[in-house]
């Protein structure tokens, strides 16, 4: 449904997107995960034809964004980060305007409008000015706007940002339900959001794709401590013996010597076994403190650390 190849975007000297390629199949819900400024919005703006890429191609439903922008735009409903609403219109007027812009046939529009408003639950505010709506309702009207003309592809840029927890759950449910009929790309910097709604995750950081996988696989990879580095204060030979003596450890090699009496080891263990606790216990018993222990899957870890800390901050 969506094919993106070698997409690059430069803003002056800053490279916002660097050789990004991925495809989204029909009916998939794909999550775009990354810290702020990773290039999520830029990618979305390029797919929707709002800005152009420096190089690379984007095809939606078989049409190239540059060659056939109008045809591509017909297939896409877009909710940008800031919902594009006219404050001086009522919800109903605004949706009528969107339907006209997207050339929805009049006969269809009447029933479709009713369905959309019920789906995003804005029927009871349909005659109020958008100016007077709360942030949560504005977000919903923004979503309604994206649904006008029932486009095959929905692109939602941080659809739950600024909502209260109850609204977030509702919107996630709604997106999940929409996923049955539409192909959806949504962006977020919140990790649990992805596992709640998405079939597949694309992790993007500093304009590059860091990983593409299902949410389950990603979290498994994260908790994978079969290969890690450990830094211990103590004599190298003795510590190595203790490490090798732990049940489940397959291989131990020296990774470096950060200080005189400290040694870093690279440990490989059985996949389905968490050897961190026994290692701690035995080293503690021998009187050699562990200074550091981290997974070797560094880049992914770092991104996730950033992501999870943002979520934690927001929860406070």
């Amino acid at each position, binding site marked *: 449904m969506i094919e993106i190849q070698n997409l690059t975007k430069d803003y002056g000297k800053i490279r916002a997107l660097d050789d990004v390629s991925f495809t989204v199949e029909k009916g998939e819900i794909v999550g775009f995960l990354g810290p702020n400024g990773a290039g999520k919005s830029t990618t979305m703006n390029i797919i*929707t034809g709002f800005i*152009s890429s420096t190089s690379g191609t984007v095809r939606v439903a078989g049409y190239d964004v540059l060659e056939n922008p*109008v045809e591509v735009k*017909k297939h896409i409903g877009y909710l*940008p980060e800031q919902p594009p609403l006219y404050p001086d219109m009522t919800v109903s007027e605004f949706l009528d305007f969107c339907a006209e*812009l*997207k050339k929805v046939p009049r006969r269809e529009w009447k029933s479709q409008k009713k369905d959309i408003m019920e789906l995003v639950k804005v029927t009871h505010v349909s005659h109020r000015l958008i100016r007077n709506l709360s942030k949560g309702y504005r977000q919903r009207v923004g979503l309604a706007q994206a649904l006008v003309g029932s486009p095959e592809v929905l692109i939602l840029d941080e659809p739950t940002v600024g909502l209260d927890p109850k609204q977030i759950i509702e919107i996630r449910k709604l997106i999940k339900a929409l996923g049955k009929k539409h192909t959806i790309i949504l962006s977020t910097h919140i990790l649990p959001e992805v596992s709640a709604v998405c079939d597949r995750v694309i992790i993007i950081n500093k304009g590059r794709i860091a990983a593409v996988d299902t949410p389950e696989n990603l979290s498994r990879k994260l908790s994978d401590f079969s290969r890690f580095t450990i830094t211990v204060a103590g004599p190298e030979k003795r510590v190595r013996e203790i490490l090798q003596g732990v049940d489940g450890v397959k291989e131990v090699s020296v990774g470096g010597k950060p200080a005189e009496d400290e040694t870093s080891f690279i440990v490989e263990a059985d996949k389905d076994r968490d050897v961190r606790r026994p290692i701690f216990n035995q080293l503690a018993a021998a009187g050699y403190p562990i200074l550091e222990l981290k997974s070797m899957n560094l880049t992914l870890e770092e991104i996730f650390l950033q992501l999870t800390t943002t979520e934690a901050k927001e929860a406070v």
Partner: protein
Amino acid sequence: MLAILRRDFRSYFNSPIAYVLIGLFICIMSLFFVDSLNAGVANFSSNFISSMSFMLLFIVPILTMRSFSEDKKSGTEVLLLTSPVRLSQVVLGKYLAATAVFLVLTAVSLVFPLVLLIYGKPDGATLFSAYLGFILLGMVFISVGVFASSLTENQIVAAIITFVSLFTLTSFSYIGSYVGGLVGKVLNWLAFMEKYYEFSAGIIDITSIIFMLSFAVVFVFLTVRILERKRWSQG
């Protein structure tokens, strides 16, 4: 295009801007009206409509300042530019909406000739020609204003750019006669105010009509180019 035209037109009247502009315009013009009646000018209608045109220098910047600037600021620009509508249609819709408001203003101003008709015998042909000139001039001014508002997301800046550009454009024939030479010739050729004076003198020249309309078309086209360039910008 029609959708955008209708929405923008309604938005002008949803906010006080259209009412204030039309009210202010009529207020000031009625002062001019009484004043020129007292002065007893020979060719009343053309004289009066010339002063109406002078007022356009102040009216148009305020009319067009929000055209694109507001969409940029509120983020609705994304909606317009990601809809399956051609860029030229977006620009044309916005341009025609401002023009429609201007035509409403023109229609309201017909009250002055009406008073003349009741109490005297103005020259109908001159009146028509002067009004035609007024409308064409308004269309040129609005195209400049819409262009200016596509340059910035700040409405005040848009209004100032429009005012300064209009002021410069209208003084081309003065500047031209000072400068002389080739530059002077070019400026004189571009001086649409000269063409406008023909209308107010009662001369309807088809080349002048085409000249002024093409002036408006050029600026509408430039607006499309500006928006397109934005899309491609690397900075």
